[in-house]
């Protein structure tokens, strides 16, 4: 791990770094591809909606020796509809029958109890009318819309509107990918899935917020220097918080993985599994989008700002001039000079050793800290 720590340090100081922003077209392309695939999957295959959304019943029997085929025959005979029967890890049966009314479901339950020769009260039943799923789905959509509006407002206040927009796009991207995975793989969509999906909302933004926070700090007073332009600062922010992003994502995924393992391994199916599955996909997508989508988007949006355009021009001009003089270009990564030894030449600036993960003059040659404070 120590090497990781050292790598973290080098990332932090910008000694090593990956050009996330520069390659943004690649990420955008990749994401657009994935999104299109997801949408196609949705359009072509559609989602495999669970009982809760179609109306029907799920029966869970106690441990039984009866065979799956036998149970299926019995259930279909009693219900008059197709039944899906799974044998779970613990020897119990899970029987799903779609489009059953309450009264029919009661009959099926009684019949099943007779066939399996168990007490009727030993059979768990989950009976859902077709309108209930619709209610859940509608509420979920409402929640989604309300949340998006609120979070955009909040992020616009806490950061700035560009970041809010980028975060929103990243969020929609995560949700689309998650839903697309469900369509493509054919996982069943249950209320648990919806819960998981809605949780992604808060969570997918977590990493994004961490990066934005450092970006905001790193780009403070950016127009007062001519060493870096915005995209470079943004890239530094990503690299500087990379370890943090990876760690937070891994730590968030671990409990979900535990749920997934237990839900899938022990219970066979059910709420635990449904929630964790969609969370898992969504969190992974969220981690990806915070680095590869949200921040590059902010940079893109920001570079359109006239101020930033002018800054970029200045920076590039200065570098060109320096190159012409044969000096080491500004922004070249040489780390032997420390800014502590440097004279301050920004009026009103106090060179604090601001712990910004953005560029610091200290790290980048002879410059002065851009993340300065006044």
């Amino acid at each position, binding site marked *: 791990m120590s090497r990781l720590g*050292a790598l973290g340090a080098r990332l932090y100081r910008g000694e090593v770094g990956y050009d996330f922003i520069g390659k943004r077209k690649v990420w955008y392309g990749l994401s657009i591809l994935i999104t299109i695939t997801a949408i196609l999957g949705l359009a072509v295959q559609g989602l495999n909606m669970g009982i809760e959304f179609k109306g029907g019943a799920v029966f869970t029997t106690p441990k039984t020796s009866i065979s799956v085929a036998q149970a299926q025959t019995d259930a279909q005979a009693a219900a008059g509809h197709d039944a899906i029967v799974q044998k779970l890890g613990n020897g119990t049966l899970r029987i799903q029958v779609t489009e059953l009314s309450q009264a029919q479901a009661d009959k099926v339950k009684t019949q099943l109890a007779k066939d399996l020769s168990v007490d009727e009260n030993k059979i768990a039943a989950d009976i859902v009318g077709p309108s209930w799923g619709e*209610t859940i789905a509608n509420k979920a959509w409402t929640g989604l819309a309300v949340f998006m509006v609120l979070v955009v407002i909040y992020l616009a206040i806490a950061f700035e509107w560009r970041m809010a927009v980028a975060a929103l796009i990243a969020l929609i991207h995560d949700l689309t990918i998650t839903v697309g995975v469900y369509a493509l793989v054919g996982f069943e969509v249950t209320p648990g899935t*919806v819960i998981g999906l809605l*949780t992604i909302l808060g969570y997918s933004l977590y990493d994004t917020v961490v990066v934005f926070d450092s970006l905001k700090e790193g780009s403070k007073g950016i127009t007062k220097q001519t060493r870096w332009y915005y995209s470079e600062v943004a890239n530094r922010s990503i690299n500087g918080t990379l370890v943090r992003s990876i760690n937070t994502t891994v730590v968030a995924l671990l*409990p*979900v993985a*535990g749920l997934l393992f237990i839900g899938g391994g022990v219970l066979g199916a059910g709420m635990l599994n449904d*929630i964790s599955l969609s969370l898992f996909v969504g969190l992974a997508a969220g981690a990806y989008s915070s680095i590869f989508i949200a921040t590059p988007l902010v940079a893109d949006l920001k570079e359109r700002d006239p101020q930033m355009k002018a800054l970029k021009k200045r920076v590039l001009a200065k570098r060109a001039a320096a190159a012409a003089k044969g000096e080491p270009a500004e922004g070249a990564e040489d780390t032997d000079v420390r800014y502590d030894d440097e004279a301050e030449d920004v009026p009103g600036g106090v060179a604090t050793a601001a*712990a910004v993960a953005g560029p610091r003059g200290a790290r980048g040659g002879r410059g002065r800290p851009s993340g300065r404070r006044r």
Partner: protein
Amino acid sequence: MAAPNKGRRQAGSPGRPGRTLALFLIAMVALTGGMFWSGHVTPRLGIDLAGGTSITLQAKNTPGKPNAINKTNMDTAVNIIDRRVNGLGVSEAEVQTQGDKNIIVNIPKGTNSKQAQDQVGTTAQLFFRPVLTYAPGTPTAPEPAPSTSPSGSAKPSASGKPQADSSASSKPSPSSTTQGRAVTDALKKAPTPTPTPGASDAPAGSATPDPSATTPPPPPDPATAALEKKFTALDCRDEASRTTVNQSSGPKDTIVACGQDTTGKNWDKYILGPAELDGTDVSKAKGVLDQQRGMWIVQMDFTSGGTKKFQAITGKLSQQQPPMNQFAIVLDGNVVSAPSVAQTLGASAEISGSFDQASAQNLGNILSFGALPLSFDVASTTTVTAALGGEQLHAGLIAGAIGLALVIIYLVAYYRGLSLIAILSLGASAIMTYTIMSLLGPGIGFALNLPAVCGAIVAIGITADSFIVYFERVRDEIREGRTLRPAVERAWPRARRTILVSDFVSFLAAAVLFVVTVGKVQGFAFTLGLTTVLDVVVVFFFTKPVMTLMARKKFFSEGHSWSGLDPKRLGAKPPLRRSRPNLLEEDPPEPPQRRSRVSAAPTDSKEA
């Protein structure tokens, strides 16, 4: 509050970690003590973990009453359902509204959930309507059955299994002698029929007796024609058509309805006139065993107003020819029974049909407690056996333990000594979460369900993330070449802001979900919100002070290689800081606000 709280204390000053910590620990002990003192040492478990039945009812919009689904009506409905369910002697059943149009009925294990289920969804909208005509319940020409007398009894919709009725004939009534199945208490000779009150368009049944009453009166207007058409097309064998056929009609309309005959096998369909009485005219009803006939019936006593109306209608009907001498007792749109009337009747009536004890008592119970102001659909019913519930809880707890262990292993591997602080903080979070959940059970009726358990497990990650944000900040400061103590203090304000902003977003998601969703999602959202708030509390009042205290310990401050703060490992440069000491040991308090910087200040409420 997602912006750093500037008034709190000088950012970066160590403050008084000991005092903060002591306060936090006192609060924790108080909570734990409160939990033991109140005797609720475990969180109350939801139906899906403890076993039982949960029924979700969804209010339906009734046409013509666009604003019927409102809080008042919902509360009335909750009260009535509560009385019905508890009238069964079901213990500890909970009835509560959820969202704006759902009612959740939770029935713990060990009670007769089936019976309760029959009761809760029944709206008990009871009407007495004169019969205009009837026919077998398949799509036919609207002809009354020519020779058979009307089948008098039908299976009430709410009953369980139809039982063979004692009267095997299709005679209208199983009553011993009279045809009138609405028997008076003492066969009171009723006074002359009073005119029907307020029935503006008098039912055809009360028109002058039509001697050739074999067909319904000719359709005088399009509405009637439409009704005829409906009647002709109606197929009573199909449940969907039965329920939809008169859904859009009010009590004052002439309707088409279905009812089962006495055998409980065949359906008849009826055209019925406007309602003459309704459920509110019934003062009391109960299921009783009719000793003479050896069958269960439901006996109804009318209110004084109801008695008058009942006299009026029976007086009128008794003058009619069949089939128009019958009145139908319509419960929730289905004809329960359609006795014919031979004489004017008074203060009470009875409904007989293929009742057994349970269904008779249920119907009596329902009629007594009144009709619900709204009609409901049973949106979902979940029955969970205690065994399955226990299993799910078990699995959830194992999953939680595994998740926690994985997180701890990762933190230890990556942060070494620092992870001790994280683990302590996670422990504090866990204790707080557990005690608060236990106290919320009796407090606000919070019940831990499976999604809530999931929420708590997922929250482990969220909580740990906050520590990571802080630790990484501290390590960044050390990379800057700082010694530990200033690093800890300087890292805090920035980490604090990140934690607050991201936790606020999580909290926002949870709050929105909690407000707009229903059912299972709500439990999840609640837990998520609770743990997010606790995360902030723990990080502020536990993790940070502990970190400050730890920073004074040699093990950490000297950067022991296992402390997770070893400058060499972190790749810090040896500090060359003596040149500008003034900037090192003090963090300038929050810089003056820049033009471009809007600081958000939401929510101290989050910490409250």
